[in-house]
C-alpha cells in the first residue's frame, strides 16, 4: 500500500480549529490508535494550529493554515504549515521548564505537549513554516 495523503486547511480563526481536531482524532481512531493516543494526536495538532493562528499570524484572520496528513511506511505524519512569522529558532528546542518565572503560567505549554506526545517533531522555515509531527502507526 502506497502512502495515502489528504490535505486539510482552515482560515486562521480559532473558531475553525475544532473541525481540524475532530477530523484528525477520528482518522487516528480509524487508523487503529487507541482512545488515548487519538486524543493526544488531536491535542498535538490543535496546539500546533493554535500556535500558527496566535503566534505566526498574530490573530489576523483570512490567512490560511494547512494540515497535511500522510499515512504510510509505518508512520502517521502531520504537517502544520503557515505563511506567517516563523517560530524563533530556540523556542522549539527548549523545554518549558525555563519558559516562565511564574509557577503557574496560563500559557506556554503547547510545544511541550507536542514534544511529549509525538515520536518526532521538526520545524522548517522557508517560503513557508512547516511543523512536521510523526507518530508511529499502531502495530496490528
Amino acid at each position, binding site marked *: 500500500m502506497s502512502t495515502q495523503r489528504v490535505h486539510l486547511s482552515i482560515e486562521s480563526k*480559532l*473558531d475553525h*480549529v*475544532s473541525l481540524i*481536531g475532530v477530523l484528525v*482524532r477520528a482518522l487516528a481512531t480509524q487508523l487503529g490508535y487507541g*482512545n*488515548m493516543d487519538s*486524543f*493526544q494526536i*488531536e*491535542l498535538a495538532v*490543535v*496546539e500546533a494550529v*493554535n500556535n500558527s*493562528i*496566535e503566534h505566526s499570524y498574530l490573530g489576523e484572520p483570512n490567512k490560511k493554515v494547512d494540515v497535511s496528513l500522510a499515512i504510510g511506511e509505518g508512520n502517521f505524519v502531520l504537517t502544520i504549515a503557515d505563511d506567517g512569522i516563523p517560530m524563533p529558532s530556540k523556542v522549539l528546542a527548549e523545554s518549558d521548564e525555563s519558559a516562565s518565572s511564574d509557577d*503557574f*503560567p*496560563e*500559557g506556554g*505549554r*503547547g510545544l*511541550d*505537549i507536542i514534544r*511529549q*506526545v509525538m515520536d518526532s517533531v521538526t520545524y522548517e522555515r522557508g517560503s513557508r513554516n512547516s511543523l512536521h509531527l510523526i507518530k508511529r502507526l499502531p502495530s496490528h
Partner: protein
Amino acid sequence: MKTETNRVGQTTVIKLLERRLGADKAGEFKAEIGKYVEAGETKIVLDLAELSFMDSSGLGALVSVLKMIGKRGDLTIAGTQATVQTLFRLTRMDKVFRSFPTVSEAVQALTPQDTLKG
C-alpha cells in the same frame, strides 16, 4: 458557554455542558467561571464529565480561575474522562488541580474536615 450550577453546602458545583474547551472558548470560560469567584464563591467544583477535549488554552483558563480564587478558597475537578486527564498529567497540572472521579468526592475534598489533611 453552557453550564449548570448547583450549591452543595458551602460549595458551588459548576457542570460544564460543553464537549470541547479549546482556545476559541477559553476566554468565555474564564469569564463565566470568574463571575462566581467575583460573586464571592471560593469553593468551586468543576464537573468536566461532558468534556471530550481540552487543550492547553482551556487548561490556562482553569489556571487563571484558580489564581483568581487564590488563598481564599479552592477549586477541585470532577469527572474528567481519562483522555482529558492526560492533559493534566502531560503538563504536570495534576499536581496543582485535585481531580476526582465523582462530584461528591470533589465536594468532600473541599469540606472543612478535609482542609486539615490537605
